[in-house]
């Protein structure tokens, strides 16, 4: 695939965003608001509380740029990076609750009675049933959750953070973890459908049925569909810091 040249490769062009140079006044503060907003938004159950914080940070960054200072990063990098973080964080938080706090108030009353009851019968009928590790007792399910919780999502969160900081290794890790996500979602959905009776039929029957399960989870499964065309088309020279 040919790499499309985006603005920024011209040697006479302004310094690419992220290149090492003294930070403009206010950038550090604006970045703190932006990243705090992303983190709160990624907490899944109270996500909207992070939106005003995120918006304020983005607005401050935009204002600094309009005053003629160097941009911290192109706006499209902010959109992709913020999405990558909340996508990873939502799954990381959700599945961590399933495993370590399956019988806590949030786990039992919201994730089981919300996600399980509405969309996934296995997370309703078999929730919190594994000895010590809780989770869901369907064959293979907890092994996928462990893969996600201990490997894929932590790597993804680090990658997305460095990606937003315009570090080249963050960009490379975004590509690596994107393909890991493809592997993970193909495996998880296929493995999940092996327990069709428990998830969708009379045993567990979620309120929104088979289609509901796909619709709810497609928001996460489609993540790599965003990332593959973006990462292989955008000008990677924008990520300069090592």
């Amino acid at each position, binding site marked *: 695939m040919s790499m499309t040249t985006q603005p920024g490769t011209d040697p006479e062009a302004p310094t690419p965003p992220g290149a090492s140079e003294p930070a403009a006044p206010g950038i550090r503060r604006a970045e703190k608001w932006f990243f705090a907003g992303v983190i709160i938004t990624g907490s899944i159950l109270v996500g909207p509380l992070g939106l005003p914080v995120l918006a304020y940070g983005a607005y401050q960054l935009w204002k600094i740029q309009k005053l003629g200072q160097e941009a911290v990063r192109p706006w499209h990098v902010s959109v992709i990076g913020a999405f990558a973080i909340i996508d990873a964080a939502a799954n990381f938080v959700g599945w961590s609750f399933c495993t370590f706090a399956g019988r806590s108030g949030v786990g039992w009353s919201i994730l089981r*009675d919300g996600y399980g009851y509405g969309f996934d019968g296995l997370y309703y009928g078999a929730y919190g049933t594994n000895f010590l590790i809780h989770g869901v007792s369907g064959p293979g399910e907890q092994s996928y959750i462990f893969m996600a919780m201990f490997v894929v999502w932590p790597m993804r969160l680090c990658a997305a953070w460095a990606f937003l900081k315009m570090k080249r290794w963050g960009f490379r890790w975004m590509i690596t973890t994107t393909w890991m996500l493809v592997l993970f979602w193909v495996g998880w959905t296929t493995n999940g459908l092996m327990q069709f009776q428990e998830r969708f039929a009379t045993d567990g029957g979620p309120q929104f049925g088979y289609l509901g399960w796909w619709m709810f989870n497609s928001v996460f499964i489609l993540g790599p569909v965003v990332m593959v065309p973006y*990462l292989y088309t955008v000008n990677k020279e924008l990520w300069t810091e090592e």
Partner: protein
Amino acid sequence: MPNSAPPPVRTPADDDHRWSDLDPLVKFGVALAGVLFCLVVLEGVLLVPYALITHGWTPGR
């Protein structure tokens, strides 16, 4: 007199990243990421009232 035109105005880096400047595949990724971002937030927060309402909680009670 040659070269009498004023020097080009240097623009902030983000001005080179207007929507119309982006490659169609980058546009596709960014647009879909924006939609999915909203849906992740919406799905997450809606689980709370959904779980409460389907298990007996009524607003205002």
